[in-house]
């Protein structure tokens, strides 16, 4: 809880700095330092809670009814606080140099006020244990995030993005509010401990309504499709350290809420519930990655990948729900672990990716990948860290992304054997689509990394890019290290989930999932499948070294020269010859044309004959399906209805008197006998 204090201090200091305009260069550093301390303290607290298996709770009642400032660090909360504090630490280290470089001088105070407020409210969201307090923390998080998103509010884009984010979040919290109140009708009290397992006691209709409302409400924050449109609009326009936090952990608040509701407040849910979660997960994952492939704005691309990974997490959750309703606690545990673990992993590597993207932005002054290229030479370490993140998010061995996706596969597969009914078919299909998603993600990150960092620079900004400062690099390094550790040491990390599963399902999970004294990860049992990322990593090293040895022994005499790449005989290879991001994703755009409905136009200027064009302008854009077919009609109809309604305020006093008169007469006629 001392972490909260540090954040509060950070806020206070931020405000002070805002009030007292002239502050030295030390000032933002101090603020970042404060939030860093907060993060570290919380890291300690959460780890302590997770490993010592001890719940620490703390409560303070206020005058206002139902509002008790009660904070409880149970395993589930501690797990998410762990993720939060990892990211918060990295982000604040990153900010040491980021804030002074990319924010106007005197605004650093108010910026870090909101930053600390965001971290504080996130901590409270994860730890609050009474409904009203939770909702308050939730809204605080939303609002502070909003102000951070619109921090560069001079730009139209960021204002629009922020507004969309704020409005949709409010809609979501509205649904959450009703959902929670429906739950609370069943339980007398509004305390989370009283809400435990309340789902069973409700009447089916109430239970279903509350479930759907809460699922969608949290889904807005998590960015599930079709409630996702704010996410690619808001995340990219924020300052990069904020985008990292938002894509990394703020959307996880939605996941936390779902975990809390699905597995703590509800026991076994009907099949349709789990199925809907699973389906939403699949859709989000697939569409998310497909839209990501079409982006050549680096940060928008990453934002769409957040949607994809949320989808993967929800696949785990949905499977867990289904297993629970079919009565297979062990499988439910496996699926739940898969989902939760992927949540943590995604938090880490997405934060890493956004931070390095921020570095790239700072160097290249654009988010458009078509302007980048060749950065690997000018900013080698950023490139390396981005590569690590890319491998992790593509779910390739031996990094952490692979582990959690592997667990998800295993859960889905064992679902087939376990579940009796026809729903069993859903599991392998989900698995296959997950495979498709992962492969597409790999393709997408080949594009992202290749176009951004490799080959020749496509813009002069990129050509004179410079490596980012030490603190920013070290933040990325730390996260990259965490990616590797979580990947290789997965089997050692798994016991962390024991208390959570204990709390939810009532037994420890790691004995079933870990074998070979912590070296091998299994899917329930050695027989049903096993993997060991650590061994794989070692073997890869050895096998990779083999040809190297061979090279040293025999290949000495063969020369090694540097020469120009094949340029079809043109005079010299220039950036114009390079493959562009748009071109890279063209085949997929064609294959999924039914979804994207791409629009292209080509204008060629030529002097002599059409065969010798002077310049060719090609532009192609895809149709934003949901915006065009769902949200725009909705917005228009609402506004039309509103402007129709406004006619009642005609300005004529006679009309006004008539309203009153009619009301009076009607009430006299029907009211009195009422």
């Amino acid at each position: 809880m001392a972490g909260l204090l540090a954040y509060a201090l950070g806020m206070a200091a931020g405000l002070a700095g805002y009030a007292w305009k002239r502050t030295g260069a030390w000032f933002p550093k101090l603020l970042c330092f404060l939030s860093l301390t907060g993060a570290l303290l919380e890291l300690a607290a959460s780890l302590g809670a997770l490993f010592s298996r001890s719940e620490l709770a703390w409560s303070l009642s206020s005058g206002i009814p139902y509002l008790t400032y009660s904070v409880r660090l149970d395993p589930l909360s501690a797990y998410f606080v762990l993720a939060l504090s990892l990211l918060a630490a990295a982000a604040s280290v990153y900010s040491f140099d980021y804030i002074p470089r990319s924010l106007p001088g005197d605004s650093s105070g108010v910026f870090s006020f909101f930053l600390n407020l965001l971290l504080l409210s996130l901590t409270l969201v994860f730890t609050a244990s009474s409904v009203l307090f939770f909702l308050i923390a939730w809204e605080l998080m939303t609002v502070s995030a909003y102000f951070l998103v619109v921090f560069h509010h001079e730009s139209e884009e960021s204002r629009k993005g922020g507004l969309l984010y704020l409005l949709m979040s409010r809609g979501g919290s509205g649904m959450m509010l009703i959902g929670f109140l429906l739950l609370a009708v069943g339980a007398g009290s509004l305390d989370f401990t009283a809400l435990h397992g309340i789902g069973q006691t409700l009447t089916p209709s109430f239970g279903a309504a509350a479930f759907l409302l809460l699922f969608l409400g949290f889904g807005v924050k998590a960015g599930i499709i079709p409630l996702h449109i704010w996410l690619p609009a808001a995340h990219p326009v924020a300052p990069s350290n904020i985008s990292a936090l938002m894509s990394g952990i703020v959307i996880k608040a939605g996941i936390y809420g779902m975990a809390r509701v699905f597995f703590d407040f509800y026991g076994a849910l009907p099949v349709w519930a789990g199925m809907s979660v699973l389906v939403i997960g699949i859709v989000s994952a697939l569409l998310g990655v497909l839209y990501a492939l079409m982006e050549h704005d680096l940060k928008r691309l990453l934002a769409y990948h957040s949607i994809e990974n949320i989808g993967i997490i929800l696949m785990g959750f949905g499977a867990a729900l289904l297993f629970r309703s079919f009565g297979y606690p062990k499988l439910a545990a496996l699926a739940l672990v898969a989902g939760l673990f992927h949540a943590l992993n995604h938090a880490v590597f997405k934060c890493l990716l956004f931070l390095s993207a921020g570095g790239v932005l700072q160097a290249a002054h654009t988010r458009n990948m078509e302007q980048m290229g060749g950065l690997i030479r000018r900013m080698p370490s950023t490139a390396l860290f981005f590569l690590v993140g890319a491998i992790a998010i593509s779910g390739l061995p031996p990094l952490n992304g692979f582990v959690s996706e592997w667990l998800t596969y295993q859960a889905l597969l064992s679902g087939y054997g376990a579940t009796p009914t026809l729903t069993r078919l859903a599991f392998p299909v989900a698995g296959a689509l997950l495979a498709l998603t992962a492969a597409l993600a790999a393709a997408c990150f080949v594009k992202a990394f290749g176009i951004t960092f490799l080959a020749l620079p496509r813009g002069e900004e990129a050509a004179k890019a410079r490596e980012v400062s030490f603190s920013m690099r070290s933040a990325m390094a730390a996260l990259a290290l965490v990616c590797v550790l979580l990947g290789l040491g997965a089997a050692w990390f798994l016991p962390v989930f024991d208390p959570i599963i204990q709390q939810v399902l009532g037994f420890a999970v790691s004995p079933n999932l870990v074998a070979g004294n912590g070296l091998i990860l299994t899917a329930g049992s050695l027989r049903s499948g096993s993997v060991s990322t650590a061994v794989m990593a070692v073997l890869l090293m050895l096998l990779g070294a083999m040809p190297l040895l061979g090279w040293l022994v025999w290949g000495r005499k063969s020369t090694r020269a540097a020469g120009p790449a094949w340029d079809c005989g043109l005079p010299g290879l220039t950036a114009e010859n390079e493959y562009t991001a748009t071109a890279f994703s063209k085949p997929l755009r064609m294959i999924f044309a039914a979804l994207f409905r791409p629009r292209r136009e080509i204008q060629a200027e030529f002097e002599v004959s059409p065969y010798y064009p002077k310049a060719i302008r090609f532009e192609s854009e895809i149709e934003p399906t949901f915006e065009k077919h769902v949200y725009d009609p909705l917005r228009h109809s609402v506004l039309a209805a509103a402007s129709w309604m406004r006619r009642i305020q005609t300005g004529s006093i006679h009309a006004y008197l008539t309203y009153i008169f009619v009301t009076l007469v009607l009430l006299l006629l029907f009211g009195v006998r009422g």
Partner: protein
Amino acid sequence: MIEQVVGVVTQMALVLFLSPLIAGFIRTLKARLQTRRGPSVLQPYRDLYKLWRKGMVIPETASWIFTATPYVLFATTLLAGLLIPAISAQAPLSLFGGVLAVVYLLALGRFFLALGGLDTGSSFGGLGSSREMTISAIAEPALMLAVFTVALGAGSTNLSVVAQSALGQSWRFLAPSQMLAFAALFIALIAETGRIPVDNPATHLELTMIHEAMILEYSGPYLGLIEWSAAMKQLVLMALLVNVFFPFGLSSDWSPTAILISLLWFSAKLLVLAAAVVLVETTNAKLRLFRVPELLAVAFVLSAMALISTFLF
């Protein structure tokens, strides 16, 4: 323990030195079917040897990714080769990663290969990477679903277990689900190994080439490594196919005699499969890039039907 080591070493040697032979066999057989004399079966060995001794040219535009790629590709493919049952039902390292690991290791290799293609800065590289990633991506669900169908039959993703359960009930491959899954996997194999009708390994025509376009800038030992890895990948996938569906003659231990017998079985099965591949290659023309998805859709449907039929029968 000692048996483990023997197994690892044997299988490593097998994967390393059998793969060029299969490649050569396919090449020769194809030539013969086209009534050409064609190179000797041992030609791939010679090529590799030659490439190994040659000097190489690295594009100035390339970065360390370009250099790292061959090693990563080699390592991942070889490791994948150690995870599958080749001659013994007990794959040496299957404990450390099942079929999922195999698929994803190959994916890791492909990831780097595509990066290497982009790294050169020449438009061919990008073209190759783009097409390679696209095709592999849409091949993935078919492959996976077929693999799942098999895995579900055995109730495990551990390939040794799968193979043993297959051994346990021979003639199982006659079950409709198995046949369908096999067909699906066969198409996936063709796509993954880049053979006609998906890709033409022999062409250097920029309109059609995929794999070749990516490695256009590689030369000398690096090219050798990549070619070798390609051959190994082909072997790995074919072995996976034959041993999972037709587990005849898989030895259950690593005693020399058993190894010898099962080695014969193994090569026989591989040759048959290779022949099938050649047959497909010679009887079909290469598809246009945007026709390939239809082929793979067929594969996906096949594997889906396989899944459903396991549910039925």
